[in-house]
């Protein structure tokens, strides 16, 4: 038999002025199960709480209803009070008779009547409340960072700084990502390598950071504080531990005609290679698609010249499994493929390049050792046309609907650098509009226009046509002057839109995190939780969440790190006990609940059941992971059999409230 205590708060005059609190207490005292019902000026005050505690002990109450202000205000206060005298905190219900009654109604009679009804509803609910115990789940004190670009590196450094082990998984042979390919950075024009490579080295030397280069995450299981990831270490046919990175193998490798992806195929590398001089780890990798030894067993030069004996043609992909408490996604971005943009002759003409290719062409470590030459005839270009928003802000299916954000600035940078180095070179920029929000950004852009006389022309380029004489005819419209232009350019540079890395989508599935229609990871809240994914324990760093420049990326990387650290410092996480649970006897295993769960908290298992006909059968049933479930209840409605229910807001509890209100 229930023994319920009702406590009506005056809240000074806040409630008492419009609600006859004595009448409410009196009326509710007649409700079934109520053994004590009293009122008090300030129920939340120390003495008010003592009153509640005393009554709980005196009448050894099985449930408590507080008629007071909003539960959002003092639910916790009274739950704590109840707990302090040994009553399960979840046996306390609040009837909101202030915000939702006394403050909005004037007629005492009406307000009092409503207060009584709200009290009844709370009593009806508390009758069905079950004592809930918040579960705990341990936290593995190790983080996984997926992606070794500047975002991943920064996150890893910060987490390691806080004293936790971090694994970086990078699919390329070296960390560094896009930033390593960039020549200079806006708006300061300092050299990217000079600021990035020290961080790469720092990461490699930090004993808390473990870099898995040339590796991929192939599977992730588990949940916040307790993930298990499988990492595939792709065979590089070189023993990482033995290789000293001396480069002898690279020099001697007879296979010299391999397109160099680090330079975006603008020059060649050997079949055995180290992506660039400051690569981390500085370890050679053999490209099985070109290595003569691996292809037809003839050659073996590299192993002969390797004094460290690091070459291992027999090496195979290795899989390692590791446990993590937190996972940070930093998979970054790529420029989109431009094959759909024939009007810009990208695929036909070698002198039409993307901005990233231009970075390499201008980079001292690039194919031309830093002198800007046309890829076609290695001559010095005198007229360069930049085309903005190639594939950005498109409403057609060809491109992306969003603004890639960084193009305006890097184009200004390119234009400026070229004008600086080659004053005889004319630079034209065709733009829809120039977007320069950010510290010192607009000043930077104006410098390009005012000091460096870059010709900014508002208008889109209609067609780019390579001519017989090697020139490139750029046909465009000047929207301001309202005239058609033809420019005889030597080079054309396309500001290609950026998109999330292709590995992001499958990864999102593995992590049960959400993605938007453009495959950018969705943050838990667009304003308030920008670096967390909706899935607990998964954090977002850098351009995988949306287009970003370097400063923003680094800022978000550190933010993600601090969120991860906030999780890793805990020995265990207390779970919200108001979570869903499924009644296995009624579960159909139909997967509806799983489909609507935003947290991937629901999994299925085949269990053996004793069937009515006294046989045993295997049935597929859902089980909810209380550590992951956030208690929204979406699954409870998706479930046709009603097997799924929600602690604290069960079907019967809510219907009891409905009944009480409609009584």
């Amino acid at each position, binding site marked *: 038999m229930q023994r319920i205590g009702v406590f009506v708060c005056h809240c000074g005059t806040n409630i008492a002025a419009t609600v006859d609190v004595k009448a409410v207490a009196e009326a509710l005292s*007649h*409700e*079934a199960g109520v053994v004590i019902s009293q009122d008090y000026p300030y129920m939340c005050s120390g003495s008010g709480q003592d009153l509640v505690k005393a009554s709980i002990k005196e009448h050894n109450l099985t449930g408590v209803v507080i008629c007071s202000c909003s539960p959002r205000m003092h639910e916790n206060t009274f739950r704590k009070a109840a707990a302090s005298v040994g009553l399960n905190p979840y046996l306390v219900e609040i009837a909101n008779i202030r915000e939702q009654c006394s403050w909005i109604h004037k007629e005492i009679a009406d307000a009092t009547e409503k207060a009584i009804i709200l009290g009844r509803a709370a009593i009806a609910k508390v009758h069905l409340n079950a004592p809930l115990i918040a579960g705990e789940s341990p936290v593995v004190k190790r983080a996984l960072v997926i992606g070794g670009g500047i975002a991943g590196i920064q996150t890893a450094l910060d987490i390691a700084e806080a004293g936790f082990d971090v694994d970086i998984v990078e699919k390329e042979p070296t960390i560094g990502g896009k930033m390593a390919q960039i020549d200079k950075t806006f708006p300061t024009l300092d050299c990217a390598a000079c600021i990035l490579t020290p961080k790469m080295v720092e990461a490699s030397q930090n004993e808390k950071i473990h870099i898995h280069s040339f590796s991929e995450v192939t599977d992730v299981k588990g949940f916040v504080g307790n993930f298990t990831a499988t990492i595939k270490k792709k065979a590089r046919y070189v023993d990482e531990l033995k290789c000293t990175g001396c480069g002898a193998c690279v020099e001697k490798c007879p296979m010299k005609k391999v397109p160099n992806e680090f330079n975006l195929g603008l020059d060649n590398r050997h079949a055995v290679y180290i992506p660039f001089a400051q690569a981390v780890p500085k370890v050679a990798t053999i490209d099985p698609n070109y290595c003569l030894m691996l292809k037809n067993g003839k050659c073996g030069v590299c192993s002969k010249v390797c004094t460290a004996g690091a070459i291992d043609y027999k090496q195979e992909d290795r899989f390692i499994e590791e446990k993590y408490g937190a996972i940070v996604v930093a998979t970054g971005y790529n420029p989109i493929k431009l094959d759909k943009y024939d009007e810009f002759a990208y695929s036909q003409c070698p002198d039409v390049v993307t901005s990233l290719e231009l970075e390499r062409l201008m980079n001292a470590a690039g194919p031309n050792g830093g002198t800007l030459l046309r890829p076609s005839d290695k001559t010095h270009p005198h007229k360069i046309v930049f085309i903005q928003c190639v594939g950005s802000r498109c409403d057609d299916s060809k491109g992306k609907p969003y603004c890639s954000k960084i193009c305006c600035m890097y184009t200004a940078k390119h234009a400026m650098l070229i004008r600086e180095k080659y004053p005889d070179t004319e630079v034209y920029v065709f733009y829809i509009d120039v977007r320069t929000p950010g510290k010192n950004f607009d000043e930077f852009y104006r410098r390009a226009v005012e000091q460096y006389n870059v010709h900014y022309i508002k208008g889109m380029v209609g067609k780019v046509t390579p001519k017989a004489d090697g020139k490139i005819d750029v046909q465009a419209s000047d929207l301001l002057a309202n005239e058609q232009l033809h420019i005889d350019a030597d080079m054309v540079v396309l500001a290609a839109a950026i998109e999330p890395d292709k590995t992001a989508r499958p990864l999102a599935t593995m992590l049960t995190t959400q993605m938007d229609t453009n495959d950018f990871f969705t943050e838990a809240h667009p304003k308030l939780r920008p670096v967390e994914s909706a899935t607990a324990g998964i954090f977002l760093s850098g351009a995988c969440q949306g287009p970003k420049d370097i400063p923003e990326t680094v800022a978000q990387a550190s933010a993600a790190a601090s969120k991860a650290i906030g999780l890793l410092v805990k020995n265990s996480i207390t779970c919200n006990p108001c979570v869903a649970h499924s009644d296995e006897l009624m579960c159909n295993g139909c997967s509806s609940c799983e489909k609507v769960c935003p947290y991937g908290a629901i999994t299925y298992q085949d269990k053996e059941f004793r069937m*009515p*006909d*006294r046989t045993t059968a295997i049935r597929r049933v859902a089980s909810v992971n209380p550590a992951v479930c956030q208690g929204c209840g979406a699954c409870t409605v998706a479930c046709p059999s009603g097997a799924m229910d929600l602690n604290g807001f069960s079907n019967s509890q809510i219907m009891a409230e409905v*009944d009480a209100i*409609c*009584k």
Partner: protein
Amino acid sequence: MLKIALDKIDSLFSAVAEKQTLYIPADRADGASEYKKYENGMKMSSNLNTLRSAKDFFFPQTENLVDFKMEGKNIEVIDIREESEDFVVFGVRACDARSFTILDKVFLSDPVDSYYKNRRDHGTIVTMACSKPAETCFCGVFGIDATEPEGDASCWNDGESLFIKANNEKGQAFIDSVSSLLQDGDTAKLDETKAKTKEILSKLPLANLSTDSFGGDKLNELFRSEKWAELSESCLGCGTCTFVCPTCQCYDIKDFNTGNGIKRFRCWDSCMYSDFTKMAHGNPRLTQVERFRQRFMHKLVYFPANNNGEFGCVGCGRCLSKCPVSMNIVKVMKALEVK
């Protein structure tokens, strides 16, 4: 025998309807027929039988038994029984007429079901002989003569007139109440009609169905028969057969919380339902095989065992045409028959 010309039948109905509520079989938009409260001008259905049986008038699908009022912590019990008014159900077929013999055995034997008795006391059943039996009819199998229906009063139709005869006081009272409209008539043509009908009855596809293999004394072998598993395989476990059946009489008693009191009501239950006779310990019949067996064992074995040989079926054929998967008592009887 007393008779009234068919074209005058409306006057008969309205005369009855003036004194008490009269129900006659009327056609429905979908071609089926059902008992409707008579209103002037209403035509009697020409269908052989109604979709739902006449049972519903005496044993409705749901009825309130008692109310409980709750004030705070007190409970008050309210008896809501009241004497029902007199009414007439007209045009009941021989099979349905016999069903009352069966229902009475259940509800009027001690302890008497006062709710049922109340309606039986106030209800007059006027039956109508069949002239056009359907392929699904097998009342003959249970010794029912479709041309000689039971009931308080019985009617025949020879194509021109409606003949009527009382079988008891109640029936006599009914006839007296309309005697002014009736006159004596010669039954020569009627006897022809009966003869014709009898001939058709003898040719019905199910005319030779035999009950020899059934009855109280066959309990063990029938209960243990291996055939139940296969027979019940297709059964969906719905209650269609039960709810269209004129003799099924199982019910459940439930409390409904209205929010300001409790209504204790009873409603038809079906032995085909998974929660039939569910008790604190659970359910005595765990699988559809057992539930399916229960229904037919009850009609063909348990009932006769307790009611000196009377079977719990009247062969109206409703379940034959209504079962979603056409699994029915006839198929069961044929399958279990020992040749």
